[in-house]
């Protein structure tokens, strides 16, 4: 079967105020009927991308077609082809639900008869029929969200954009919205593009997921394939003391059956953006003096292979020293996440090694790789962790050097 690409994005870039690259040269296609997810942390550029596709923002460069219409040449047809549910609520709360829907129908040129029929039909899908004539200001958060989704679908769009459809909703309501989204995708035959920073949401809903970080696509594949890039099991070791974790990290990395060992920064060592910049300044100075390159952890390829820490303990200490006190602070992790082949058999051996090193474990967890782990492996941090991990700092550092024309260690 030959499927049509309903969305084709080519080298789309958005630079704000001449300096902030919110979306950085991204290209991808979406097939008709897909539920396609953008997964990324706050500020990754998800909303900016959707706004450009919806012709609300002018791209700095690059282009896209939706349903065959070019966003530059034919924005009107693009707008007719899409429905948009914004991240922030855009209902008029002083109007009733029906008035909100009716106004929307008029804007898209539906006749009175079409509006009447379609409103009834779509209300049944989102189960709001009995409240539609009440003022929206009397609705609950979940009802408002459902009304917005219904409105986005009223004019039979080919593509529905859902920007953070369940942000701020309780778990039950979130589940219900998920069900609606799946139902709409099947029954209304509409392609859905959604953004989220909930990995469970992306996992539950999406056929394919694009992980976006600092405006770049760092991974794009089916949900299954993404998870399959991490072969083996994830083992989380939490140590009593940060010094123990620090000591164990290079050791664990040297084990043959450990694919990767990553420090996971906890909540007690949040490093803010400004501190991060300071660190990078300092590192830049170091790098200028030469000798840093050999110490940089290798992070070749971001599509699926894992970044790893320097295996040589001495080098790692040197890297930490180079980062000064903040480096120390960052290294204050107590948890290490390992990707292990066949963990259930290796676990006893692992515990023995740790024991033999004279350090104390607080807890051990083990699970099959989730999208969360995939996210950690491709971006170097947890999706909701605002603080930077070491890997992320290296990444940023590298990006800065690239920007300055420096060479990149591989």
């Amino acid at each position, binding site marked *: 079967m030959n499927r049509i690409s309903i969305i084709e994005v080519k080298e789309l870039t958005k630079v704000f105020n001449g300096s902030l690259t919110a979306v950085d040269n991204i290209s991808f296609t979406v097939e008709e009927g897909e539920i396609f997810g953008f997964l990324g942390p706050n500020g990754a550029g998800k909303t900016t991308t959707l706004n450009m596709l919806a012709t609300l923002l002018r791209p700095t460069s690059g282009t896209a077609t939706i349903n065959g219409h070019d966003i530059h040449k034919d924005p009107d047809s693009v707008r007719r082809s899409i429905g948009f549910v914004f991240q*922030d609520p855009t209902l008029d709360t002083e109007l009733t639900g029906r008035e909100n829907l009716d106004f929307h129908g008029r804007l898209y040129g539906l006749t009175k008869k079409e509006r009447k029929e379609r409103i009834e039909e779509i209300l049944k899908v989102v189960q709001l029929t009995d409240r539609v004539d009440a003022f929206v200001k009397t609705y609950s958060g979940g009802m408002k969200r459902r009304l917005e989704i219904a409105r986005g679908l009223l004019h039979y769009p080919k593509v529905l954009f859902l920007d953070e459809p369940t942000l701020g909703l309780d778990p039950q309501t979130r589940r219900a919205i998920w069900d609606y989204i799946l139902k709409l995708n099947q029954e209304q035959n509409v392609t859905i593009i959604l953004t989220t920073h909930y990995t469970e949401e992306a996992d539950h809903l999406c056929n394919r997921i694009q992980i976006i970080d600092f405006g770049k696509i760092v991974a794009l594949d089916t949900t299954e394939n993404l998870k399959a890039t991490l072969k083996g099991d994830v083992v989380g070791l939490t140590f009593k003391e940060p010094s123990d974790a620090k000591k164990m990290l290079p050791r664990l990395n040297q084990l043959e059956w450990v694919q990767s060992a990553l420090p996971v920064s906890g909540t007690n060592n949040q490093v803010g953006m400004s501190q991060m910049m300071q660190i990078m300044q300092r590192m830049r100075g170091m790098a200028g003096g030469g000798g840093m390159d050999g110490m940089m952890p290798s992070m070749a390829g971001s599509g699926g292979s894992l970044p790893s820490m320097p295996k040589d303990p001495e080098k790692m200490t040197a890297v930490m020293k180079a980062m000064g006190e903040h480096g120390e602070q960052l290294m204050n992790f107590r948890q290490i996440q390992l990707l292990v082949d066949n963990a259930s058999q290796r676990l006893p051996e692992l515990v023995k090694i740790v024991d033999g090193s004279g350090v104390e474990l607080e807890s051990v967890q083990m699970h099959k790789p989730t999208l969360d782990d995939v996210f950690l492996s491709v971006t170097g941090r947890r999706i909701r962790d605002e603080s930077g991990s070491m890997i992320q700092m290296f990444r940023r550092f590298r990006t800065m050097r690239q920007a300055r024309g420096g060479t990149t260690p591989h």
Partner: protein
Amino acid sequence: MQPISGQAIYVVLLRELKRFWRAKARIIASIAQSFFFLLILGFGIGGLFGGALGGNYLTYIAPGIIAMSLLFASVFSGVSVIFDRQFGFFKEMLVAPVSRTSIITGKILGGAVTASIQGILILVVSTVLGAFFIDLRFALGIFGAIGVMLLITAGFVGLGVAIGSALTDFHAFQLITTFVMWPLFMLSGVFFPIDTAPLALQIAMLLDPLFYGVELLRFCLTGYITPLLGLLGPLITLGVLSGFSLAMIVLGTYLFSRAEA
């Protein structure tokens, strides 16, 4: 560029009307405020006033009080595009296949109609208070006055939209009130006739677009126009006011269309 869409204009207009009608407290507050102005100033200062219109101060200030309510209602209605685009419904309209010109046309129409309805209500109140001599001239003048109200309000909604599109920060609201609305109001000849003011003030008043609105409104309702403008007074004021309103509508539409979502 999309053509003007009647449906889009209608949607925005209807939304403004519904919201206006449902916010009854606001309408009542605005009428009450004008009522107090008329009552206290009209009868309070009345005795000191020896100027135009045979010295009847209530008659003199009533058109100005109507204009005051028109000014405030219309500028605020225009400036509310800041809220609309940040918090709501406009964002949803901006992604619809309709032109921004249609959206803003509806906004200006809606703002002008709702502000003028407030003006008409205050006209009724002042008539009841005895501000106007009721005769055939007055009866005909009312129609002219309603037209003038729409002209004034359309211009000032346009100004509000222009301000609202240029500013992205709604904390500037207070500044708009202090530096735009109050000077416009105070210099419009509401409280004293221009011909009794010192020259510097006269020049400032002649630069105030609302001055022409007040003059024209007063002319329609009482037949009086300041002698300073000469025989062509009504035509001059109508010309200046129309020019201002047209310019503001164009400016507001331009700035609104230009801004990114």
